[in-house]
């Protein structure tokens, strides 16, 4: 068993785990009750899911410039995912589309 086999194996595990996380994100998108909770599913397990898929592809390809492009994809994912989630969340929150307005508490009075 050589290092390429190890890299292939780890890459396959990463691909599988990433795909499962993306699947869970889509299921969450369907099952969560309102917009804000759906934002969690739409943006979140996907972060790690996409990263794992990219790592998996990188481990299978193993060529410098391809890995560079994958790093680029990952970096732009990490930069843009919070922006889109934040914009949708804020638009919904400010226009009152979030209903019912759930418990709003200011956790400033936390004593620990």
């Amino acid at each position, binding site marked *: 068993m050589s290092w390429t086999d190890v890299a292939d194996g780890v890459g396959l595990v990463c691909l599988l785990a990433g795909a499962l996380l993306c699947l869970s994100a889509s299921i969450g998108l369907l099952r969560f009750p309102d917009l804000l909770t759906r934002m*969690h599913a739409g943006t979140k397990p996907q972060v790690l899911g996409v990263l794992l898929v990219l790592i998996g592809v990188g481990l299978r390809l193993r060529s410098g410039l391809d890995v560079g492009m994958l790093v680029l994809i990952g970096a732009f994912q990490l930069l843009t995912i919070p922006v889109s989630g934040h914009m949708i969340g804020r638009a919904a929150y400010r226009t009152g589309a979030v209903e019912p307005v*759930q418990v709003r508490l200011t*956790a400033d009075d936390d004593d620990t």
Partner: protein
Amino acid sequence: MIRRRVQPFPLLWLTLVWVLLWGNVSWANVLGGLALGFVILMVFPLPRLSVGMTFRPVWFAVLLGHFVVDLVRASVTVAWLAVRPGRPANGVVFDVRLRGRDELLQSVTAEMVALVPGTVVIDLEPASGAMTIHALDVHDLDGARRIHRQILGQEDRVLRALATDVPGPTTEERT
């Protein structure tokens, strides 16, 4: 005007992106990237970032390590919330007051909080540092306090890694 608009670092970065997108290093790609970066920076000038930041490698490694652990743990939690049988999870909206006043570091904190599953940043008021959060699967004050502490801890690590002067602990600032 050219000197003000075309800064060396963004130009190199745009060239690097261009070369990576083409997927091979050749003179045509490098020169093409430089030319394109030049045009982009002339047409869309970037504001010069006033970076009052100090880079501390050890604390930065702590920040990244902690972030990866958070990311994995929270991803698994949210994935389970999505697929577990029964009533799906609900969440609450609340405010967290950040300690730092530097807008750039506030955005770094907000980005990292937004990337970790379980919390969505809805709003951020830079002047007061008030960040509005939606937290998943929180049902009571204790749960909200837990998230609150997590976010302040996250900000603490960001400040330790990057802030020029680290503000004192929260308890001293509170009046």
